[in-house]
């Protein structure tokens, strides 16, 4: 047992760190540090920088442009990009539909889609959830009927993250209404420019517009856009659920946010001294820091097992639950640290380019919205209740 990086891994870490220092645009870094809203262009710019360096296809086979990293290298990359204020990689192309196409797609689909996913020339979104379905994903109602070389799609998807930016959407649709729930579902790729698609933003409690409803009204999709066999979409979806999930731990990003808690608590005053000198507040930070260590060390055990060739199991559920709890606990500490200045809601201060002086400290404006927004973390992506159920069934055999 050993927690030290090998010299090669140290070199790799230094290389990643230096690359971020040299190439992450300063305006993006500033927005990240202040928790401000990122534009589509911010994501794409950063992803293209990584693409140019050959670091976009993490987890992809080398033949499709993957960087051929060991599990430890992937861990390091996640950690350093999280610590280094880099924007999240938008996962829908790279981590979701990409691996699906690699595993199930035709050669034509691979040629058409993979290069543009890697180069971030095409923005994807995910059409899984539907109104009324909640955690019961398989109860979806959007239907696709074959008609003359096309599927005609009708229905509605919801909670579609950043659909307003998307060029393509991958969807689960019902292609056999007579079949039992999980059967009769197919996996379709749909060009968002196809007539009949309408995107309507859902405003979230923090005032954000990250998620959308997507309506399909007689949308004609070429049958060539089916991935995997018809009515086997559930198998494809399950493959995705089981696919490389250690990145959901977001350890680097949480370490970065926890450091932000400490910085803010060092700047905020209480009884004439920095708040961070309050023993109780220090201990609350310590609790989250310890929980984050436990997440990190458990992740490292999984990474080590992967290095030894063991396939990841249902540990993803463990990581999902604890990672989101840690993230949410950090957002609570941020709100607590800022005291009364959690209250002002100055919408313009949440985007870059606002020229008025801040209300309170400049880091204050985004903290309460960040807390509110992050309540979603334990709901989306398989709610933590669903994850506990998975552990009970898959691990405990209940």
């Amino acid at each position, binding site marked *: 047992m050993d927690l030290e990086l090998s010299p090669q891994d140290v070199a790799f870490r230094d290389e990643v760190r230096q690359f971020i220092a040299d190439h992450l645009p300063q305006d993006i870094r500033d927005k990240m540090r202040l928790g401000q809203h990122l534009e589509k262009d911010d994501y794409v710019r950063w992803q293209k920088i990584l693409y140019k360096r050959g670091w976009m296809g993490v987890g992809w086979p080398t033949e499709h442009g993957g960087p051929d990293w060991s599990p430890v290298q992937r861990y390091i990359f996640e950690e350093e990009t999280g610590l280094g204020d880099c924007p999240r990689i938008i996962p829908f192309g790279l981590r979701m539909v990409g691996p699906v196409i690699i595993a199930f797609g035709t050669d034509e689909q691979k040629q058409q889609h993979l290069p543009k996913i890697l180069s971030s020339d095409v923005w994807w979104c995910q059409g899984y*959830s539907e109104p*009324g*379905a*909640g*955690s*019961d994903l398989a*109860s979806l109602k959007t239907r696709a009927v074959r008609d003359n070389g096309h599927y005609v799609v009708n229905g509605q998807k*919801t*909670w579609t993250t950043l659909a307003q930016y998307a060029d393509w959407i991958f969807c689960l649709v019902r292609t056999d209404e007579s079949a039992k729930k999980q059967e009769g579902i197919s996996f379709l790729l749909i060009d968002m420019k196809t007539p009949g698609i309408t995107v309507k933003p*859902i*405003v*979230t*409690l923090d*005032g954000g517009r990250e998620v959308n409803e997507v309506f399909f009204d007689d949308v004609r999709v070429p049958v060539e856009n089916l991935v995997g066999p018809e009515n086997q979409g559930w198998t494809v979806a399950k493959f995705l659920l089981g696919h490389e999930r250690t990145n959901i731990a977001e350890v680097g990003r949480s370490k970065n946010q926890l450091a932000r808690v400490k910085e803010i608590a060092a700047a*905020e*005053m*209480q*009884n*004439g001294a920095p*708040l961070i000198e309050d023993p*109780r*507040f220090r201990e*609350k930070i310590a609790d989250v820091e310890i929980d984050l260590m436990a997440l990190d060390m458990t992740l490292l055990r999984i990474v080590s097992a992967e290095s030894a060739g063991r396939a990841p199991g249902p540990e993803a559920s463990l990581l999902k639950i604890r990672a989101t709890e840690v993230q949410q606990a950090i957002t*609570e500490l941020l*709100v*607590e640290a800022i*005291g*009364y*200045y*959690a*209250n*002002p*809601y*100055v919408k313009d201060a949440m985007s870059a380019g606002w020229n008025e002086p801040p*209300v*309170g400290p400049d880091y204050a404006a985004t903290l*309460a*919205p960040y*807390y*509110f*927004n992050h*309540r*979603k973390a*334990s*709901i*989306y992506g398989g*709610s*933590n*209740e669903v994850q506990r159920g998975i552990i009970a069934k898959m691990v405990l055999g209940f």
Partner: protein
Amino acid sequence: MQFALTDEQRMLQDSVDRFIERDYDFEHRRSLIATDEGFSDTHWKTFADLGWLGVPFSEEQGGYGGGLVEAGLILEAFGRGLVVEPYLWTVVVGGGLLSLAGRDDLLAEVIAGDLHLAFGFAEPQSRFDLADVATRGEKQGSGYRITGHKAVVFNAPSAGRIIVPARTGGAQREAEGISLFVIDPSADGVSVRGYPTVDGLRAAEVELDGVMVGADALLGGEGEGYPLIETTADRATAALCCEAAGVMQTMVASTQDYLKTRNQFGVPLSKFQVLQHRMAELFIHKEQSQSMAYMALVRAGQEDRVARARAASAAKTFVGDKGRIVGQEAIQMHGGMGVTDEMPISHYFKRLTMIDTLFGNADFHRRRFANLSGTARAA
């Protein structure tokens, strides 16, 4: 001992509940918070007409002879309806200070619904310490010259008067030497930078740059403001706990309804044992929060400082801790719907979250309570 509402108190709450049911549906609230002022003057006049603005004040002061309990009960009902009109700030806090200081002239305007008030008790460096006052009040002739920055002053954009603590003596963070002044926001040197709050209310940064006031601007004696501030904060805390209890009541009821009507895997969510047990916990939290809020109300009207302070701090700690659980759990059990702006539940959640920051959060009051508690057998 009768720890239940009197018939009169019940009638008062019923009338507030009826007002909300009739005139204050959620879309109406949404339209109010989108206005410049952020609430309705018409409603405020109605409150005056119904006597709600004068409820806590004695008849000698032009009020209706109720007390803090009645004001708390109004706020509990306001919490249930998520009412944004600034009853807490104008009546309980501002009116409370005027009443303690015997400023019946201004109080009459409050009771009539003609005057809004704000209280600038926080400063950028003060956090929750009411005695951490850096704003200075320098004697100038018979009056004072006031300079300082008051942070996140609720209701200041609408206030006809802003009450501010300023230091006329003593060292920073000392209770001694703090004086209370009534400031006219239109006076020279006052700047009020208003903004909405995350829970749909209005507040402002108030800068006082050498503001000149006369001796009549002083509330209470010079340097003797702190006891008024602390008493008012404890009373406001009790009333705020009532509002929180009301917010929780609606959150629990809404979540209960949602779980009963929403199906998943072919059965209503209310049939899932995990959600049943978690809802049972929320039910207990909201019941006990109401008990604690009422206790704080009753004690806040009493003379004994320690009993009042312990009760207020215990209630605020409890409501802060359990309110966080109720809020987060209600959102979680609503699933994706819980995080939309469209659903009322998310607005209740935001209000409940922000209540914890007012007059000191749960950690602040836990410590205050612990420091007020002896090792004696009284619990």
